[in-house]
């Protein structure tokens, strides 16, 4: 999967430049609510409940201040990605104990073939320290888009 293809899954209405929530539970609730208000899901509680159950199996924080909460649900029509930031960070029970400042939520329908490929590619990008550093300074969706499309 190339950068442009990866980028095609991100949308302006699913970008939260600064989360209001300061807890893991609050953040999951807020991102689920954002999916509902942007009409990507009919009921936020379905996604919130599932993301919470997934977190119950182990934190989705991948270290270095990044978390990738993810799940499959019939509540979404297609692979849906939300990008949110929290400048002060959120305790996501990460293995490296670092507060999470970058949050990428990925939800896909049960039989979506791109889900795992997308997750793999996303994590590959996010483990790059340089990219993470620049992402932390992103202020708008347009900035985020131009950053990702500029990566070689």
């Amino acid at each position, binding site marked *: 999967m190339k950068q442009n293809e990866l980028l095609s899954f991100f949308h302006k209405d699913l970008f939260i430049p600064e989360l209001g929530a300061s807890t893991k539970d609050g953040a999951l609730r807020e991102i689920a609510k954002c999916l509902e208000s942007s009409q990507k*899901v*009919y*009921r936020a*509680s*379905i996604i919130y*409940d*599932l993301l919470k*159950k*997934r977190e*119950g*199996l*182990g*934190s*989705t924080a*991948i*270290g270095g201040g990044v978390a*990738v909460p993810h*799940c*499959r*649900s*019939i*509540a*979404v*029509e297609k692979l849906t990605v939300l990008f949110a930031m929290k400048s002060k960070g959120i305790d996501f029970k990460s*293995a490296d104990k670092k507060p999470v400042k970058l949050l990428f939520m990925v939800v896909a*329908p*049960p039989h979506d073939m791109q889900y*795992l490929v997308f*997750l*793999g590619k996303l*994590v590959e990008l996010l483990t790059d320290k340089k990219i993470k550093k620049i992402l932390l300074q992103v202020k708008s969706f347009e900035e985020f888009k131009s950053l990702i499309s500029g990566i070689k």
Partner: protein
Amino acid sequence: MNEVLQKLVMLQDLDYLIVEVKSKDVKKVQKKMGLEIKGDEKLHDAKKALEEAIPPRVLSRYHKLMERFGRAIAPVVDSKCMGCYMTLPKRLSVKELGNKELRQCERCGMYLYWV
């Protein structure tokens, strides 16, 4: 939204999650992400609690459909049942109306969920 329908959607999502955490491909990606999945017995507890909250007749139908088709709930997209691709009656083209009641597709019998 119909309460039973919401529980059915959550139950099917949970059933898929239970299968997914055991999948080799998922484990491989999770490992690449540096994530470890443990304690999936919690999911079985959650499943049991959900099943207890669903009327027995509906639950029995759910299990039969899962056994037969591998899913029991079909999303409705553009007024079509995604289980059998049948176009639904016009009166069900609005999701607010569709999700208000527990409905089954007249052709494939799956429970319908307006995405």
